[in-house]
């Protein structure tokens, strides 16, 4: 299905203060793919994400979502297709209750109260926060906030999910549950993260960014297995799971 396609062609973006954040990025993500976007601080991940939801428009080059180029005219269609989950749930959950927050998007898309309810309830049920629907968002735990933020995006039935650091600030169990939840989605997923083990778990493909350019792009395992020097250059490291067992290593060196 072509409307799930994400295609960047030689993308450039320079901030008004002169910072060149993206310097010629190209990639093509097809339907149902799950892609990790990794890189050090300031590599351009967040800037790229803001392009995907049309919050920033490229200085040069084109970005196509489905068959549409991202531009001021196509923004409404783009925002219906792409669901963006921000890094800080407090920025995203601005309505008085969890229910109303999830209903915010569908309402804006023109659905009336009767049509909104089943959509919102389904989104809240899928993310496991239906029982919190009448609670104000600022009273929730970090894990609950994250789920509510994802529900608020799911309620708009997007084709493509974009997540910025979804596992940040979560305790190990909440992180595990989040991974299981995300795995259950059949959407095209683009996940910017420093949690490389999460990338291993969820994404078949990984794009490594450095200095606003694509350094590596390929199957996740291959990217992390045989590229120690490139990873170092991108301020990354092997996922912990690939680094070998510390207990065994201690035994080896002592014995």
């Amino acid at each position, binding site marked *: 299905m072509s409307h799930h396609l994400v295609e960047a062609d030689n993308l450039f973006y320079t901030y008004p203060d002169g910072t060149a954040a993206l310097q010629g990025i190209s990639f093509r993500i097809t339907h149902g793919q799950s892609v990790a976007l990794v890189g050090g601080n300031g590599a351009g991940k967040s800037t790229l994400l803001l392009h995907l939801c*049309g*919050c920033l428009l490229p200085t040069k080059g084109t970005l196509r979502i489905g068959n549409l180029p991202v531009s001021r005219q196509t923004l409404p269609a783009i925002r219906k297709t792409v669901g963006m989950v921000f890094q800080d749930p407090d920025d995203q959950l601005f309505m008085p209750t969890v229910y109303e927050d999830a209903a915010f998007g569908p309402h804006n898309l023109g659905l009336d109260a009767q049509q909104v309810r089943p959509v919102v309830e389904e989104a809240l049920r899928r993310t496991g926060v239906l029982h919190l629907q009448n609670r*104000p968002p600022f009273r929730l735990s970090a894990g609950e906030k994250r789920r509510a933020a994802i529900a608020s995006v799911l309620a708009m039935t997007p084709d493509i999910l974009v997540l910025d650091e979804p596992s940040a600030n979560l305790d190990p169990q909440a992180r595990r549950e989040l991974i299981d939840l995300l795995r259950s989605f059949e959407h095209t997923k683009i996940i910017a993260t420093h949690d490389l083990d999460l990338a291993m778990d969820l994404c078949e493909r990984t794009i490594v960014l450095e200095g606003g350019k694509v350094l590596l792009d390929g199957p996740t395992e291959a990217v992390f297995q045989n590229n120690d020097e490139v990873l170092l250059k991108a301020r990354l490291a092997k996922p912990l799971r690939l680094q070998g067992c510390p207990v065994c290593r201690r035994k080896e060196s002592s014995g």
Partner: protein
Amino acid sequence: MMGTAGQDILLNLGRMDELARSDSPIHRLDSRVKVLTTVVFLVCVVSFPKYTVSALIPFFLYPFYLMTAAHVPTGLLLRRLAAVSPLAVLLGIWNPLLDRQAVLSVGFLSVSGGWLSFCSILLRFGLTVGSVLVLIATTGLESICAALEKIKIPRIFVLQILFLYRYLFVLTEEAARMLRARSLRSFDGRGTGLLSFRGMAGTLLLRTFERAERISQAMYCRAFEGRIPTKQVFQISRQDVLFFFFWTVFFIIFRWVNPAAIWGRFLEGITE
């Protein structure tokens, strides 16, 4: 510490909002009716001349009625009132100093106009802030905002109130974290002065701008077009109409008629 005091007030505010989710005949009234009635109440209270004291007394009936009928705990409300009262005292305390003309004598004691207007300010403060607090505790800020929008208050103001309320908590938490971080690195009162406060206020302002930008991005990503949807259902019942007319008539009558003065004149008539 300043941070904890601020958080106490906010926790109380959260408590008020929780109260708004309980149920009583007052909670069930249409929020527009409650807002409008409170507005009439405020206008009447504020429009009294500056030396008015005794004529204000009947107006206490309204907040007290709401509190009892809606089971709002008196202690909580009084604490909230006390928390903001320094402002009223600060505004009013100049009057006794500036206005020393004696306007009233009780026995051999003469009361100056300044003290009288000071009393009047305190009473009015209690009435206005008290009734607004009761309105929040029985209606909830979101419903109040929905009602304001419904009675054609410009949307931009309603949005401001809604967002102010939502992010007050986030902002105070941020400020409290900064204060904590500062106190951990300042010794013997050094580093707690105005200079570092200025820096902190500036940082907080910049962070607020950044957050505002992120929030607006998040809103536009979800197809925001300037309208905040509410699940509020508005329906005027007979109770609503009765409530509104009873209290409006009550306020208007007692705005012009002072029972204490009538009683005084009545007593005078007997003694003559």
